[in-house]
């Protein structure tokens, strides 16, 4: 720890070496005065270059002289201007949209060595890079896209969430403009809550996680939305098989205030109506979501952005059951350039998640949810050559909504309300990025102070007994102060060393604590799962993550290749007890067991960035294991030995290729292979009270069959000459492979007692889709 601190302090103060230089700073905008994030700015012919930050600001420092200042960004024309530097100067740069033919050149130039230069385990993507991959149900989707990257998997079609490097799905921090999202899926996971039209870019941190982020062990998926056009109005429409969407944006006050509004509506119910089965015919599946984003330019150095997002899902099966869930997110952000080198972002976020499950058989519904609010401030100083220092704080408030049983009609059940917990997580962080031609170093420290608030009672369990309703011996009431409190210090460091310009050797280390847990006893995330903050008895999870690897490219930079090894050591990870009862349970600690986890493996990535054929081959070998070795048999799983987690998949292979076959046509295909995930199989059975009792194996002893899938897609641009339009076709699961979602035991008929297992395939046939997109006013 001391060594890390010393390293960090040294890096933060390296400016002493460069104090006598002059600087050029400014903001890079597009033709609509919208800041351009991540644009490359450099002095031509020197090694002085940088990229713009979240407000489009850049700063370069060098000695006095005459230079050619250049700026580049994907889809924009190059900027170039000669400047004489004999004092500090401010130069704002406006980048114009490039012609179609130029885009490929710039895209290649900008991205051709991104994998070499990035810190280990950071994947930054934009939809413009992904727009040609085959679509599922006609939609380009954030989560479905990252599933094609090495180290990212899920448990099969129709499952929510994703698993990163052997982590559980709740170990991913998913944010939309900084607002935490507690259920990122639409339609049971076939879509995500992110509307591709509104997303500017998204970054997945699966290795090095900057200290600006915290609270989840495995990864951060940071999704940023666009800001509206300040110059002209435009409209985008998209019509598909299952969903349609629109986007309108433009200036309310030219160059001052822009608005962007979008909506997406899914209507698979019409497919349900086509079936003969009356149960299915009377079922209902739908979702919708909307975004509104306002952006106000306050003078040259300030911008205020407000955004609102809401979504609603309904999933009803006949008169049997119905799930409804909704998200509502609000963001208010003030970005300001205090000086040429000092930038501040103050942000308020609110996120509300509601979940309601109605069981028509028993005629009551169960409602729960989460209220989240946060205030975040990031202060960035980049006045030092090749250095960016970021300090800030987060204050997050998690408030679990009471869990309610709401009877309907004469159900015979009483109304019930289970009080839940709330918590305040306060964090401060300092993060520094420094680099030159030989090395890039990102390092930081995050300090967390966690306090459980709300219900002021703490149950006392009898010592020497497993936690259960029967072992409760007393209740302690906390009069003042938090019910429980945890604090920790999280060092993070990522190093990139370049022995040659085309080779980088990388390493990273993170320590992260997680104070909020998704308590689940299902294979995949389900609407029945519950978010639970840490309590006296449910301690925070903690991980130490190590990553090491190297990247290399050739002189032509046609391919970028990388190799990463990772190891994760997790403490206080939770698994469910057999037959855990989670709903309407005020003492969830009685239903779960805690233990250790570990995940390790390696990833290979071969990415082709140039030429007509582009894409990547990603491969992961990994293990994800748990160990629940506790003093009580009820809290021990598989005799306390290591066992495979639900999402342990030994091999993952993804091949993603697309070919630009001319000005207006593309073709693409994906090949996905995953080792089957573990399951618990039935090995024998007996009869008691006239009922068959299956005898199951140890947990996760067997594996479902391997998963293989091939998708193809093609698209045509400019279908109608005067329109900016595009028609996409895709076939998901081209060869109609019956990939297993699960293997399960089914009760035998009334006379047989020999148990059989069955394979469930969710998507056992190919699924064709089309999608037509058109834009006006661009």
């Amino acid at each position: 720890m001391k060594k890390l601190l010393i390293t960090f302090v040294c890096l933060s103060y390296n400016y002493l070496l460069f104090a006598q230089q002059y600087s050029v700073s400014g903001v890079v905008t597009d033709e609509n005065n919208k800041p351009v994030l991540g644009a490359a700015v450099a002095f031509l012919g020197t090694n002085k270059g940088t990229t713009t930050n979240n407000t489009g600001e850049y700063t370069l420092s060098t000695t006095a002289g005459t230079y050619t200042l250049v700026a580049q960004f994907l889809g924009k024309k190059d900027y170039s201007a000669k400047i004489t530097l004999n004092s500090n100067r401010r130069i704002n740069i406006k980048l114009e949209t490039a012609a179609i033919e130029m885009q490929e050149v710039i895209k290649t130039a900008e991205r051709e060595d991104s994998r070499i230069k990035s810190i280990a385990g950071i994947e930054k993507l934009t939809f413009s890079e992904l727009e040609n991959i085959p679509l599922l149900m006609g939609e380009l989707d954030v989560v479905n896209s990252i599933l094609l990257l090495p180290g990212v998997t899920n448990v099969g079609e129709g499952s929510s969430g994703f698993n990163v490097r052997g982590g559980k799905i709740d170990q991913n921090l998913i944010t939309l403009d900084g607002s935490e999202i507690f259920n990122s899926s639409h339609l049971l996971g076939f879509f995500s809550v992110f509307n591709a039209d509104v997303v500017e870019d998204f970054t997945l941190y699966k290795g090095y996680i900057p200290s600006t982020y915290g609270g989840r062990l495995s990864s951060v998926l940071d999704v940023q939305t666009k800001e509206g056009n300040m110059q002209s109005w435009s409209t985008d429409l998209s019509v598909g098989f299952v969903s349609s969407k629109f986007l309108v944006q433009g200036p309310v006050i030219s160059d001052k205030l822009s608005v962007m509004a979008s909506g997406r509506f899914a209507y698979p119910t019409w497919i349900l109506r086509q079936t003969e089965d009356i149960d299915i015919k009377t079922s209902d599946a739908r979702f919708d979501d909307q975004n509104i984003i306002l952006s106000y330019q306050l003078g040259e150095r300030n911008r205020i952005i407000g955004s609102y997002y809401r979504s609603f899902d309904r999933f009803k099966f006949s008169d049997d059951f119905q799930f409804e869930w909704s998200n509502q997110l609000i963001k208010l952000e003030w970005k300001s350039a205090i000086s040429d080198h000092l930038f501040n972002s103050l942000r308020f976020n609110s996120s509300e998640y509601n979940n309601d499950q109605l069981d028509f058989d028993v005629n009551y519904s169960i409602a729960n949810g989460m209220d989240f609010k946060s205030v975040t401030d990031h202060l960035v100083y980049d006045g030092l050559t090749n250095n960016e220092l970021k300090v800030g704080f987060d204050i997050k408030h998690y408030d679990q909504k009471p869990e309610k049983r709401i009877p309907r009609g004469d159900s015979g059940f009483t109304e019930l309300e289970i009080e839940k917990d709330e918590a305040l997580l306060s964090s401060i962080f300092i993060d520094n990025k420094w680099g030159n031609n030989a090395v890039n170093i990102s390092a930081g420290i995050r300090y967390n102070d966690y306090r459980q608030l709300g219900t002021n009672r703490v149950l006392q369990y009898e010592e020497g007994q497993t936690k259960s309703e029967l072992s409760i011996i007393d209740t302690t009431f906390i009069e003042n102060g938090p019910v429980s409190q945890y604090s920790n210090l999280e060092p993070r460091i990522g190093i990139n060393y370049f022995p040659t310009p085309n080779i980088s050797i990388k390493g990273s280390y993170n320590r992260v604590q997680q104070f909020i847990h998704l308590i689940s006893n299902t294979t995949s995330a389900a609407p029945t799962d519950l978010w639970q903050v840490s309590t006296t008895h449910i301690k925070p999870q903690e991980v130490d993550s190590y990553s090491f690897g190297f990247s290399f490219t050739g002189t032509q930079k046609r391919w970028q290749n990388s190799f990463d090894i990772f190891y994760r050591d997790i403490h206080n990870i939770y698994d469910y007890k057999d037959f855990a009862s989670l709903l309407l349970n005020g003492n969830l600690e009685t239903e779960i067991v805690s233990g250790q986890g570990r995940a390790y493996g390696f990833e290979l990535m071969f990415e082709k960035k140039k030429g007509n054929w582009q894409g990547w081959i990603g491969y992961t070998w990994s293990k994800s294991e748990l160990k629940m070795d506790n003093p009580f048999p009820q809290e021990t799983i598989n005799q306390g030995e290591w066992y495979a987690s639900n999402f342990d998949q030994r091999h993952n292979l993804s091949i993603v290729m697309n070919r630009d076959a001319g000005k207006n046509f593309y073709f693409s295909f994906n090949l996905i292979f995953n080792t089957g995930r573990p399951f618990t199989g039935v090995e024998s059975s007996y009869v008691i009270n006239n009922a068959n009792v299956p005898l199951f194996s140890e947990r996760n002893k067997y594996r479902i069959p391997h998963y293989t899938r091939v998708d193809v897609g093609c698209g045509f641009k400019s279908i109608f000459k005067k329109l900016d339009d595009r028609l996409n076709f895709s076939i998901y699961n081209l060869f109609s492979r019956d990939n297993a979602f699960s293997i399960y035991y089914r009760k035998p008929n009334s006379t047989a007692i020999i148990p059989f297992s069955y394979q469930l395939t969710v998507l056992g046939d190919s699924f064709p889709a089309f999608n037509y997109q058109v834009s006006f006013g661009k």
Partner: protein
Amino acid sequence: MMKRLIYILPVLIISCEEQFDFGLQTNSDMEYVITGEINQSNGPYNILIQQTKKGSKVPVAVNGACIKLIDSQNNIEEFRANGAGNYEVQGELIQGTPGMSYHVEIVLPDGTEIVSEPERLPTSTIPDFSIEWEQGLITTTTGLGIDVETPVVYGSLKIDNINTEEETFVLWEIEEVYQFLQLIQFIQFTPPPPCYITRPIGSTEIRLFSSEDFDGNSIEENQFFMREIDDSFLRKRIFTITQLSITESNFRHLENIKTLNENTGSIFDSPPGRVIGNLRSTNSDAVVHGYFQAVNSSVFRFAIYPDEIPNLSSLVRTHGCSDGRPEPPCWDCSLLANSTFTRPSFFDEVD
């Protein structure tokens, strides 16, 4: 609720399910399965001991065990072997009495010692129940989307004046007994005697009730059980409904079994687990499954005669013996499960 979710998935896309052989690597041999019961009757009381066996999905009988039944006053009575893993105690010294506790101590031939947790025979039973039956039709949809109507007999359950102040846990078991007449073979000169088939109704369903969270005072369930009408209804049939008042521990155990039986493999299913009852080994790590239960039972029987079902001959579905190529059990009913030529004692008494 959850179990039907599976049916929605084919709609959203295209799903299917098929039997799957995952290459059983069972190491579950040496896992014992013990089931037994004591009730408030005069006896006898039975225990069945089995053991799972490598490579077999059905447990095999364990013979040669020494079993003692012990009550809360430390009276002891020994079980005697009754064939194929069955053991019986006559109840000469110990009889099930509500409020008393009972457990068993077992020594298996391999030296494994097993005891059960003491079970207190419940004192409380919910009031007597009544069953009424009626004839009806159920509609099922085939995989091709064709609706098929099947004639059935429904049984309805009704219980009034339930006292919810006292926690009550109930299990219902339903059985049917009917006569089966073998076909006369060519070489036979006299018709064979009728044999009697005993079958559980809806053995895959576990019918449980708990007064927890129940704020009504009566239970009325119209389709408590259902039996398809076939040609076995052409003779007298008796339904036996047994209401068992059970302990809370037994109720939780049965709830877990019910959970396993309702899984459909969907994402909402509770993952499977190992159901552990109230038996454990005291001198080894052997895993013991099953339950020795103390129950307070009451029985209700009713008969259905062929003339009580209108147009029976036009409704019946054959079970094979009336067709042109009858199955072997039509000639020898001992090939049918749970068949006997011994007439059950109640068969003539019940109307």
